[in-house]
């Protein structure tokens, strides 16, 4: 009787311990949208992601960021950006990434501005590769260069 009770007690404790440890092990994953890190899980649509990640210095008529996708390549963040020129004429823009660490501070030095020629009614794809695994987030700056 006592042996039987002890066995049941031991098995119950083990089962409970197993459940308890399982529930506490997995770390909370930061929210992402289209593979990109976002501050809040409310960023669900592509428009929200673009609004959160892209900053433009002045209006660029007809030119916009159409899509952003993120993935990991060898422990480094890779960003794929689709720039679209819906205008009837060629436009020139320049862009740069700002890489941020887990705390939201700059993870790398200021990048150089990269000039891009956008043909009329065409898409242009740019790729950003994080210079360090510490860079876990980013902002994209787009500046008009037509003048």
């Amino acid at each position, binding site marked *: 009787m006592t042996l039987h009770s002890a066995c049941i007690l031991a098995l119950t404790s083990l089962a409970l311990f197993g459940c308890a440890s399982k529930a506490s092990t997995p770390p909370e994953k930061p929210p992402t949208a289209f593979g990109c890190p976002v501050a809040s899980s409310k960023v669900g649509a592509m428009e929200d992601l673009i609004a959160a990640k892209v900053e433009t210095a002045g209006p660029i008529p007809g030119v916009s960021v159409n899509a952003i996708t993120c993935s990991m390549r*060898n422990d*480094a963040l890779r960003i794929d950006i689709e720039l679209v020129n819906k205008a009837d004429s060629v436009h020139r823009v*320049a862009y740069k990434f700002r890489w941020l660490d887990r705390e939201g501070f700059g993870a790398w030095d200021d990048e*150089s*501005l990269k000039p891009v020629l956008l043909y009329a009614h065409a898409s242009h794809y740019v790729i950003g590769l994080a210079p360090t695994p510490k860079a876990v987030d980013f902002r994209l700056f787009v500046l008009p260069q037509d003048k």
Partner: protein
Amino acid sequence: MNRIALVLIPLVSIAALGGCAKDVVRYGDARGVETVTNQFGSTDLQLIAESMTRSLLNHHVIVKTEDPVMTVQEVKNKTSEYIDTRAITDTIRSELLKSGKVKFAVDSAGMEQQVEELNRQQGELYERRKAVKTGRMVGAEYRLEGNIVSIVKQAKDVKDVYYKFNLQLWNIENGLLEWTDEKEIRKTTTKG
């Protein structure tokens, strides 16, 4: 009276114009797009260095090997203009070092100074215990070399310059080309 006016008016005009033409100095964005002329410029240097560094840092030689030791050899300037290719490789080297994934051994350009300092410390003037020891230099496993070429086309009102920068990473021990990448830049100047 009229004579005085005739002399004074041009003088005052020249002085005023001289004042207008005064040079203005301003600080600019060192990382901004520079389009003063279509010769090789700061933006080209930065674009090349950044593109090469990011590509190399994502290659398996850097990712999989622990602290690979590299050395920088010559980047040949095959263009018709003067380009300080050392400035390009210095920027690439400093970006790679900053990543913390690569180490650099002394290159041929710095070897003379390295040996001179090493030998100097072997002299009687230095405390033996603290002087650096010879025979401990680390040889590079990989060497970086490359070239830059340009194609220039000029018509009456248009000048087009195309640059192609190629960088290669060679395994010194087995002579294998481990990585190579290119960066192309086109700049066009039109008059008017």
